[in-house]
């Protein structure tokens, strides 16, 4: 059954069979459920990122997929085979650790060829393969005998990646390996990782607390909170159609307003007035709702200009975001965020009273 499956030939007509399938996966540590009710299909060859704040259970989930922890309930199958209790050394998967876990007593080449040595491959073949992999991850050949502890942060990432590739896994797991790097290097390596994903065609499952990182690299993103998968979707879906306030706030700074329905009208709870809401994406009928407006969709309204919804407040702070400027506007007790490009920035000391507004179509209406 394993042999008859076609290789990573994803066609548009039929969705490929999931390589990894999680059904009702739960992990309990001493009465506390770190991971609960996870149902997830991972497609062959996709780059899936699980994001969530620290303590959301994403590392526990990954450890179960890698075989370092066993689920308390539920099933994990790899190409249809139940692998709940299969130990890591028997799984065709490999984990790139947050600490990278490079062997400090081994050279770059020895680290990379470690999986081959374990399999009993001879030294000459190991060296040949290590050099091939070093070229793939863009490490110079003369690094083969270098002490791995003398490599820079970025070079170590590449060594860890090459070491994982040497195992020839079907699925690669990444536990925030880029989190300790400086911003610029991180950005560069994110792109390289995405390129490597495309070149190798392997299935990547990446976990991070940074949605920004997830957005850059992933085909799909799963957002976790308190042990549960809240939403799984493409970056566009996560950004454009968050299922609740948690996901919408996770994506970036947002304005959230609570509303109550009275007949056909929506009344603000935090701010006075009646508002026009877009219907919720799931079509639910709500009596209470949260309206989420991203700062970039909040417009400053010149006198006479109109928007579906309007608020009047006072500017009391501004932050430079580089090419854009973000304003904090106090509307009653509530602080709203709005952005302008630098070219259109408000004149300093200009009338502090402003009118801001947004169109219903630019905002999300969420039930929770």
């Amino acid at each position, binding site marked *: 059954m394993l042999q008859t499956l076609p290789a990573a030939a994803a066609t548009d007509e039929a969705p490929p069979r999931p390589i990894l399938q999680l059904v009702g996966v739960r992990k309990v540590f001493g009465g506390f459920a770190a991971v609960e009710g996870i149902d997830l299909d991972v497609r062959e060859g996709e780059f899936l990122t699980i994001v969530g704040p620290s303590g959301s259970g994403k590392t526990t989930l990954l450890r179960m997929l*890698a*075989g*370092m922890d066993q689920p308390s309930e539920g099933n994990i199958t790899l190409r249809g085979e139940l692998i709940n209790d299969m*130990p*890591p*050394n028997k799984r065709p*998967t*490999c*984990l790139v*650790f*947050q*600490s990278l*876990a490079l*062997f*400090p*007593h*081994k*050279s*770059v080449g*020895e680290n990379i060829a*470690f*999986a081959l*040595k*374990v*399999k009993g491959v001879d030294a000459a073949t190991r060296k040949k393969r290590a050099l091939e992999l070093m070229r793939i991850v863009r490490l110079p050949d003369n690094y083969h*005998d*270098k*002490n*791995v502890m*003398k490599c820079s942060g970025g070079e170590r990432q590449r060594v860890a990646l090459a*070491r994982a590739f040497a*195992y020839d896994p079907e699925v690669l797991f990444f536990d925030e390996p880029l989190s300790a790097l400086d911003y610029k290097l991180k950005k560069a390596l994110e792109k390289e990782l995405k390129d490597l994903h495309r070149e190798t065609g392997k299935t990547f499952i990446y976990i991070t607390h940074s949605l920004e990182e997830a957005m850059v690299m992933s085909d799909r993103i799963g957002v976790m909170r308190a042990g549960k998968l809240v939403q799984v979707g493409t970056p566009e879906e996560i950004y454009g159609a968050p299922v609740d306030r948690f996901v919408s706030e996770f994506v970036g700074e947002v304005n959230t307003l609570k509303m109550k329905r009275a007949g056909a009208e929506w009344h603000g709870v935090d701010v006075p007035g009646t508002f026009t809401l877009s219907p919720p994406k799931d079509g639910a009928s709500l009596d209470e709702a949260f309206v989420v407006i991203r700062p970039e969709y909040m417009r400053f309204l010149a006198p006479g200009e109109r928007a579906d919804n309007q608020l009047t407040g006072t500017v009391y702070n501004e932050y430079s975001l580089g090419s854009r400027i973000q304003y904090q506007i106090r509307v009653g007790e509530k602080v709203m965020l709005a952005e302008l490009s630098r070219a259109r920035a408000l004149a300093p000391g200009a009338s502090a009273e402003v009118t801001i507004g947004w169109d219903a179509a630019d905002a999300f209406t969420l039930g929770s």
Partner: protein
Amino acid sequence: MATTPAVARRRTNTLIWIWTVFVLVAVYLPIVCGALASFNKSRYFGFPIKIYATEWWQKTLDSIEIGMLVRNSIAIALLVTVISVVIATFGALAFARYDWKGRRLYQKLIVLPIFFPQPVLGLALLLGFNAVGIQTSWLTAVFAHLVWIVPVVTLVIAIQVYGFDPSLEEAAYDLGCTRTQVFREVTLPLLWPGIWSGMLFAFLLSWSNFPLSLYTAGADSTIPKWLYAKMVAGYTPMVPALGTMATLGAASLLLGGGLVMLLLRRRQPA
């Protein structure tokens, strides 16, 4: 009258020097005195030494009795080293790496024997051996040494275990290693410095142990035991001669051990 920073610094340096020399003299002068006493031609010790001679060293080296007790000391120390390092390595891994019920209690209990007065521990062990009818010999001394030395070596190795990232073992396991391969490829090489220090500790602590050997070695003698016995009755300059030899032996072992450590570190990739 204000002191300039330069003067103050010079004064600090002088004080550091005086203190360092004082400590070194206090520590090493007795050993030098012992060595000098062994080169006294006269049978009885007294300063100033009138005639220097190496005959007591020669006699010590020629003595069959001393040869036997040196062999005893070496045999005990070697056996203690091997056994204690094996027990301590797994003990250190057990309490520094794995979380299990009773781990904290074990951690405390294992350290406790270090603080027991050794003569009391020796006496207790002797009574114990008698109670179960075991004839004391150098082998029972090995057991007694282990009771005291295993905790020390466990602590020494545990420091190394605490300093290493458990994800290294997981990574090896994840890359296809069996449990045995993980131990051979990752755990053991990374624990080597700690195990090596532990071995030196074990050997040297056993080598110089007197109170436990006194109670538990039975009719077999060891170097410290013989030194004491001859001080009590039958002193000759062979006592300081053997004492100096034992000290030199320990010192060269330490030096050699340090050298091996240095070489091990050199062998790592550049």
